Structure formats: C-alpha cells, structure tokens
C-alpha cells in the first residue's frame, strides 16, 4: 500500500458536504459514507464493516437510500464513497421494511447470539418467522453470522491465512482446513477481537493459547523472563519483535507488557539522571 492510498501523501483530503437524513455534514472526499454517518451519530446497523479492511458489503444491514438526479436507489453505505452533495436517507419505509426482514434472517441464523438479539431489538425486531438454525456441535456456538471479519483480518492484516470460508451457499462456515488445528495460526486472537457477535472462543491456560473454535489448535505462550507470567503467543511476539531495531528488540525480548513498561521507565530514569539522551528513540551510532 502506498502512502498516497493510506492518506499520508501530505496533501489534506478535500472536504465535501453530504446530506444524511436532511442534515448537512462534512466528510472527506471519497470517505466511506458509513464511517462519516456513524461519526455524525446516524443509527445505521452494520456487522461486516471495519475501517482497516477493504469494503466488503456482505451483511447488507447498512443499506441506505441514495438520491441521485431525482432517482433513488438502495446501496450499502459501507461501499459508498462520499462525493459533494451526496444525499442519503437511512430510515425510509422501504429501508425499514427490508432491514427488518434481514434482522429476522439473522435471528434465525444465529439464534444464540445476544448481540444480534439486542441489535435487532433496537430496530424493533424481536422475533423471526424463519426456522432457527440449531447446531449443537457448532464450534462457533450458534452465533456466527458469516460477516467474514475474522477471515479478512487473518488474511489481510495478520497475513496468516489460518482460517477461511468452507463450503458455499447456506452451507458456508468459517474454519481451518478440514477443521483441524492449523499450524499457520499464530494465536494472535485478532479474529476473536474483531468478531461482532463474540462467537470465537479462545482460552489461555497452562502456558498455551487454545483456539477452541478453530479445531482446538494450541499455540505456546511466551513466558516473561522477569515475573514469570505467560503473556502472549510466542509466534506473535517473535513476529512483532522482528519489526524492531536491535537495541530495543534485545531490551524487550522475553518481557511481558508490564515488565516491559517497567524496564523502559527504569532505563529512562537512569539515562535522564545522567543527563543523557534516550537511546531507544535515537539509535546509537556504531
């Protein structure tokens, strides 16, 4: 990704005016409309949107009505880019009608999810006419809505690719290959963190991180060299440390976050007492 693409090119983005439910708001040109609307406090439900990932448009809950040249159409706000004068409505009778059916579909698909129940209830949907999916063996506990956030974060952000979609259509599920423990998993837990319905179960015990939802895979946790606590998966720690420069890397290796903070603070105090500079910020010349 270039600096231009992530907005670091130095030139500020052009500001445009968009109209949300009759109210004028500012947005950056090209900004995802859902992001701008949420910032403005608009009540648009969504499950598959995450700012750091590519637009996906799968949950269909964020559909808004766009008015263009007098013609209206329904589009997902998470794939819509802000342009000058763009006018959207979030609560037309049509939007409400279709959104309610979608909520009913979600209630049937993830009957165990409290997040879905609460979200649907906020929009006035408390029951579903559709047959509820009951699967007592579901490693995702009947709460997965296939928003794809876990798969995308594992692939796009972590670069691990440990999980993916299996099967297609109504048989689609998320899992590791053959639902077995996957050695590609570094145990980072980003999947569980990003999951909107808290469907992914991960547990740290006995010096290991157990990926209950992903075939019971186990990742060794690194132990702090000072306090002895298990603090993070070893593979993740190694990957993170590899990005640091040697003095800092060597200083922090094998420390838990708390001991790390203490070590840095101690070092700063020691250096400052001597009136020296912070060698972590400015690497020493060899």
């Amino acid at each position: 990704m270039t600096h231009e693409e992530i907005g670091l090119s130095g030139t500020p983005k052009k500001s445009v005016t968009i109209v949300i439910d009759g109210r004028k708001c500012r947005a950056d040109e090209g900004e995802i409309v859902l992001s701008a609307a949420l910032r403005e406090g608009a009540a648009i439900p969504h499950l598959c949107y995450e700012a750091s990932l590519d637009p996906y448009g799968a949950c269909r809950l964020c559909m808004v009505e766009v008015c263009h040249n007098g013609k209206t159409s329904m589009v997902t706000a998470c794939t819509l880019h802000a342009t000058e004068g763009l006018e959207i409505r979030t609560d037309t009778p049509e939007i409400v009608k279709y959104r309610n059916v979608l909520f009913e579909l979600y209630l049937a698909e993830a009957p165990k999810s409290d997040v879905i129940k609460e979200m649907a209830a906020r929009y006035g949907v408390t029951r579903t006419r559709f047959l509820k999916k009951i699967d007592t063996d579901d490693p995702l506990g009947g709460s997965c809505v296939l928003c794809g956030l876990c798969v995308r974060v594992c692939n796009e952000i972590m670069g691990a690719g440990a999980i993916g979609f299996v099967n297609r259509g109504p048989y689609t599920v998320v899992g590791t290959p053959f639902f077995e423990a996957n050695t590609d998993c570094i145990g980072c837990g980003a999947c569980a963190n990003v999951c909107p319905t808290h469907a992914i179960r991960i547990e740290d015990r006995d010096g290991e991180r157990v990926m209950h939802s992903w075939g019971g895979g186990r990742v060794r946790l690194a132990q702090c060299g000072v306090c002895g606590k298990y603090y993070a998966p070893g593979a993740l720690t190694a990957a993170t440390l590899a990005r640091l420069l040697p003095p800092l890397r060597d200083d922090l290796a094998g420390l838990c976050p708390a001991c790390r903070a203490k070590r840095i603070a101690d070092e700063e105090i020691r250096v400052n007492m001597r009136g020296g500079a912070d060698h972590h910020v400015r690497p020493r010349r060899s």
Partner: protein
Amino acid sequence: MTGAAEADLPAREAAGLRKLKPDRPRIAVGLATCGAAMGGDRVYRRFQEIIGAGGDDIMLTKTGCIGYCREEPQVNITIPGRPLVILHRVDADDVEEIVTAVRAGEVPYEMALCRVPSWDHVTGTTVEYGGGFDRIPLYQDVRFFSHQKKVVLRNAGFINPEDIDEYIAVGGYAAAKTALTEMEPDAVVAEVERSGLRGRGGAGFPTGLKWRITRKAPGDEKYIICNADEGDPGAYMNRNEMESDPHMLIEGMIIGAYAIGAREGLIYLRAEYPLAIRRLELAIAQARTCGLLGERIFGTGFDFEIRIVTGAGAFVCGESTALIASIEGRTGRPHPRPPRLTDIGGGLWKKPTDLNNVETWCNVPVIIQNGGDWYARIGTEKNTGTKVFSLVGKVDRVGLVEVPLGTSLNTIVFDIGNGGSQGKKVKAVQTGGPSGGCIPVRLFDTPVDYENLNRVGSIMGSGGIVVMDEETNMVDIARYFVNFATGESCGKCVPCREGLKHTLLLLNKIMAGKGTEKDLDTLGLLADTIQKTSLCGLGQLAPNPVLTTLAYFREEYGALVKK
C-alpha cells in the same frame, strides 16, 4: 523477432472448399455433445468400419450441430452435383444401408429430413451443392427451420469444427483481415456501435460502448475475456456455438482485442464442457499455426494470444467479479462494483478488462464483414440482430433456435416448437434460466427482447427457454429453480445465503401441503427482500421464478395451502 508467416487465406480457402465439396461423396456425422449423447459417436464409428473396409471412395468427417436436437443423430450426405441431404434419427444399424445408397449415388429417402441445394454462409459466401432429390423437402420448408434466421449458427452443422480450412472456406477470418489491415481500431468500435449489438450474456449492455470504455481506460495493458461459464439449467447455446464453430469465437476475439487494444484474451470455460474445451484448444492451435494468433497478425504490428481458463463448477463464477477472482486463483465470490471491470483496479490483475459472452463475440465477425447497418436491420430498433435460444422442456420440437430479436414467444413455442410435447397444452415458459421468470401462455404475444421480457417480470438471460405444459406444477417449478440457486449461492451476503434457504424451506412446506396463507405472504416479502438487497446478480435475480409464479399462478399456490 520475426513474426509468424502471414496467413495464406486463399490457399486455405481453396483447400477448405475441396473438403466441403469433394470430388467424391462426403458423409459428415453431427458430433456435438448432443449428437454424441444420442448415439452419434456409435454411428461415426460404424461409418469408419464400413467405409474403411471399402476403400477411400467416400470422405467421412464430422460436423457440429444444426440445432434440431429432437432429430439427433444427424448425418449430412453430400454427393457431387447433388444437394446436401440431412438424414435424421440415424442409428448405427442404418449405416450399412446409407453407405450402400451413397456408393450408388443415392440417399436413403426415408431417413432424409431435408435437402439443401445451396447454403448462404451470410459472410458473402454461398456454397452451391447442386440439384435433384426433389422428393426430399427443402430445408426452408421444414417448420422447425422456416421461422429461423441463422446468423450466429450459419456454419453450425455444415462445417467441420475441427478444421480451420472449412471455416476459412465459408468466409472465416476475412472480417479479421479487413479489421486489422484496413480499419483503425476506433472504426472497428464504431462499426460495432452502429450495429446496436447488446451483450448476449443476458444484461444487454451495448457491446460497442463497453469496448469504447475499455479502449479509453488508461494504461497499455488490457485484457479481453470471453465468458463461457454457461450454467443455466436447460441452456446450451454457448456450448453449441463453441463445439460447432469455435473459430467464429476466436475471430470475434481477435477483432475485439484489436479494437480495444488488448494483447491477451482469455476464455473462461466451464470444466463441464470437455468437448468445447478440446475443440477450442484445437482451434486456437490451428489459428496459431496459420499466423492468426501470435505475433504480427496479418503482417501488422498487432500481437494477440488466447488462453483457456477452465472453471471448477461454480455457477456464480459467471458473475463478472467472481469470474475475475476465479481466474486470479481466488475463491469465486462476487464483490461490490464499482470498480467495474473496465476501470483501472477492477479488471483482471487490476487492469481494464472487457468481458463479453460467447455469443456476443460470435456476432462480431459478421458485423465487420457485412457492416453495422446490415446487422442493425435485423431485429427491432433497440434490439438488433438475432439471438440463439435453447427451446427445451415439454415442447414438441426441442432444439436450438435462432431468431431475430423481437420475435414473439408464440412464434418460438408454437410455430417453431410446435407446442407441447405429446399434444399437451402449453401453460408457460421460463426464460433466462434460474434467474428468469415464468411467463404464462396468455402473454405469449410478448416480443422476445431485453425490455419486454423485463416488463413481464423475466429476463433474456443467456437464452434458455423452458416450456411447461398443463401437467407442470408451477410451485414445483419455482421450487426447482430456487433449489438450484440456493445450491449455487456463494454464501457471502445474507439475503442470498439465508434468504434463498428459507425461500426453499417455505416452498417445500407449501409443496408438502403444510403451508398457510400467511406463509405465502412471508414468501412474497422474502423474495422481494432478496431481490432488492442482494449483493450480486445471482441473488438479485434468483427470486424471479417465485415472484412471477406468485403473480401469474397464485391459484396454484392457493390450492396447496391450508384454508
């Protein structure tokens, strides 16, 4: 690097004509997949045995399919100076009798379907066969053929699809030569625009406009792709186009690549069409040998290559963004547009890409050869040209039919198809495959074109027409197509994945006699929601069979639900 030898078209043309009209009898067995499935390959093998035993006084060869599926297997007999005679429903046991007759300068009359004294290959070439055999009906007097207009299928069933010489003999690659050596790319685009040709994959987007957009898109690297992922139940137009006349597709792509400015073309072809894959691979190799593909084609500075990419059995990969994902090696799941394929960042390997259906490409050579104005005179003002339809289901004369756009369903189903099979009454047709709608017989005066089919709740689609008779239960039909679409949904967006599943569950419940009036309301609302909120065309169109049967055959639903 030196280019390939300039294509020697006149020599190939002469060689091809000697094969089409040899100085000895020619027997050509119709061997597209349909012919082979009906026993054509057994017939061919029997001919090999019998002719082989008696010397080489008879030329035995293959052709594609003329489209009259009900009458397969078919065999063309050409005796020098006599009309070409098409034999139908030939069995391996008939072969000996046929060979004996042919050796005596005759044909077995009782097996003859029709005779063709001369055949117009539309591109300015008419092959004169000869006179005689007056007892056999003329081609144009056979009712299955008499209402048709063959443009795309002009060579199908006449030439050997595995021999480039025969394609060249009937005017093939002349259009490509004209385009590359005498026309500027912009003029080629303008000619296609003038023709009014619209996308034959079903959406009907103006082809010339799509070409112009891709041509104008920034960047030197562009791709053209042929969508040959035909997967609608009951539709096999593209299969026959590729199996019976593969060079027409290649020629169309050469012209398109030149007009758009692409150096590489891909054919995304479903793996379920092994014969089409084999024939296209052969045709590409032949075209390369003749210098029609590769570097410096026709001695110009234009280089072009075509490569086949096979699908892996997913219907959704016919959707443009899923198709690109599949070619790039990713899972075939659609993503939201824009960016469109023609945009930078949206096409194959993020380069601007023009994607057209097989039949769209096949229309290109004749447009260049005869001119856009000539083409625009066929059909209606906004729906020019012909369209190939597969007329299947409970219809008497099953087959592939090619008619000018704007022809009414009445003409297609009753005049060409002769109504229901076994004399039963026709009730409805389903057009456009699983994404189309069911049109009741009272609306059969509807002209078949993009807008009028939309008006009655269906779509053109790629061209499948499935006929239903009085014994067909329309709820079951809706259930069948929803079942298909549910199985083919990629599972990405919730209305398609979950909505279609629940549509199917509701339809099963209704079919089992356990549904209620309330279920019908839920069904209608759910179908409407799926149509309005799905991510891609598969989901947006999949409820059409439900919505149209609810609108036109509500009483059949009513009869099934509890009162």
